């Protein structure tokens, strides 16, 4: 994140034409995988990501079962064709880490004690990766968990903010991630007002840190509205969405 090209033009527009606080286009389809107990497909800018949920179900191997709660397992995985250079199919250390933080970001929203001795598996498959695939993956996974009917305290919405050309901007894209100065992915539960994921790559001073965190949370709230509509559309049909928009 050293040499900063001009990532904001004279009109205040970013490389993909967005304003500083604008999110990329987001589409979520619920229930797209027939065999899964819950699923969602998200397009978040150029990200195309599937999330499938299986469970609550029996745990294998059995010794992993917990007597008082459900085990949540999570896998973030990129298909070989999802990245600019072909991704080696073997799981990378990056995928292992994201799987872990993704699980930790989703778990606070789930009532796992309602399903003792069971497991819930969340599989996030990146078909096309753009900047922010972990946020898009968490967002899709949370919708898929709702679609699976898992008891939840809240929905987890995720969005990054970051710094480019010295300015705090919302929802960092691929170019901004690579050439910008900082990227801060955040996952957030809007009703409980709690942060479930926070990472930072890049340099921020005191003021920028606060500003960036606040802006990421604002982005999460925008994302949450889209999650909510996608779920309502699935369960109450197109009409409901119409009403929402009036």
């Amino acid at each position, binding site marked *: 994140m050293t040499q900063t090209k001009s990532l904001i033009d004279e009109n205040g527009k970013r490389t993909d034409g967005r304003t500083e606080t604008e999110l990329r286009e987001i589409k979520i389809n619920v229930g797209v995988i*027939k065999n899964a107990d819950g699923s969602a497909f998200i397009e978040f800018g150029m990200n195309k990501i599937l999330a499938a949920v299986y469970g609550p179900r029996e745990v294998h191997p059995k010794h992993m079962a917990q007597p008082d709660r459900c085990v949540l397992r999570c896998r973030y995985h990129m298909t070989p064709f999802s990245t600019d250079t072909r991704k080696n*199919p073997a799981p990378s250390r990056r995928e292992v880490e994201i799987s872990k933080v993704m699980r930790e970001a989703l778990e606070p929203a789930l009532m796992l004690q309602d399903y003792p001795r069971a497991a819930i598996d969340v599989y996030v498959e990146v*078909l096309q990766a753009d900047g922010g695939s972990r946020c898009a993956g968490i967002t899709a996974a949370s919708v898929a968990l709702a679609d699976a009917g898992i008891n939840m305290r809240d929905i987890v919405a995720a969005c990054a903010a970051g710094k480019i050309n010295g300015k705090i901007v919302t929802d960092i894209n691929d170019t901004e991630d690579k050439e910008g100065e900082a990227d801060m992915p955040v996952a957030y539960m809007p009703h409980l007002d709690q942060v479930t994921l926070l990472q930072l790559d890049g340099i921020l001073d005191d003021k920028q840190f606060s500003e960036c965190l606040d802006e990421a949370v604002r982005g999460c709230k925008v994302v949450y509205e889209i999650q909510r509509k996608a779920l309502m559309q699935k369960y109450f049909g197109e009409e409901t969405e119409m009403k929402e928009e009036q």
Partner: protein
Amino acid sequence: MWDSLSKGKRLDGRNLDDLRPMEIEMGLIKKANGSARVRLGNSEVVAGVKVETGEPFEGLENKGALILSAEVLPTASPHIEPGPPDEETVELARVVDRGIRESEMLDLNKLVLVTGEIVYVIFVDCSVINADGNLFDATSYAAVASLVNSKLPVFEIRDGKVVDTGEKQNSPITTLPVSITAVRIGDSILLDPTAEEEACMDARITITTNSDNNFAAVQKGSTGTFTLEQLKQIAASAKTKGEEVRNKIKELMKSGQ
């Protein structure tokens, strides 16, 4: 199921030799050099083509390298565990590869930069998203369609190094291989089996034909047997039904996908 089959009908209402409805979407993965998503009934596969350069395979110094992989994602069914490909997935990848390779769908002779040293390396990676039977054909169609959809970067050798000129070229496609899979349940031969039908099958066979409607590859599977007559009957069906699928792909090509 047995009652139904004895009357020549399947649980989903199909005749024994009916294929399920098929949908093909090409070009959905912009970061890939080619891509396709295929739905065959409820089975769904995404395939992507990525192109690099590298050394040719030993013994094939004057040919580009084609490397096909398949994985059944854990999204696809409650029975899939994440991890390295199991025996069935290895067979899936090799059978799909064999249809493409033996039909010589890609003219690999046109994908050489320096004979014996640098060639195009064409990766075709197939991901099964939802599994409801006949992954062989669904994956094969996705792989073939992703190649049909593919544009290759034009590489050149400058000062002994590979340079991507930024231009694109059509992939050197010579024929369209199409596989048709049949299973035997008792005395009935069923095409394009669902997962439910595969659970009851005695034996399975996949037959690939090319655009000349000749046979290019065969793979018998499962622990049952076939008679010679059954095999020849299925071979005939593979030609008829394969042509139907091929025409569908050709239409998509014409429609500019």
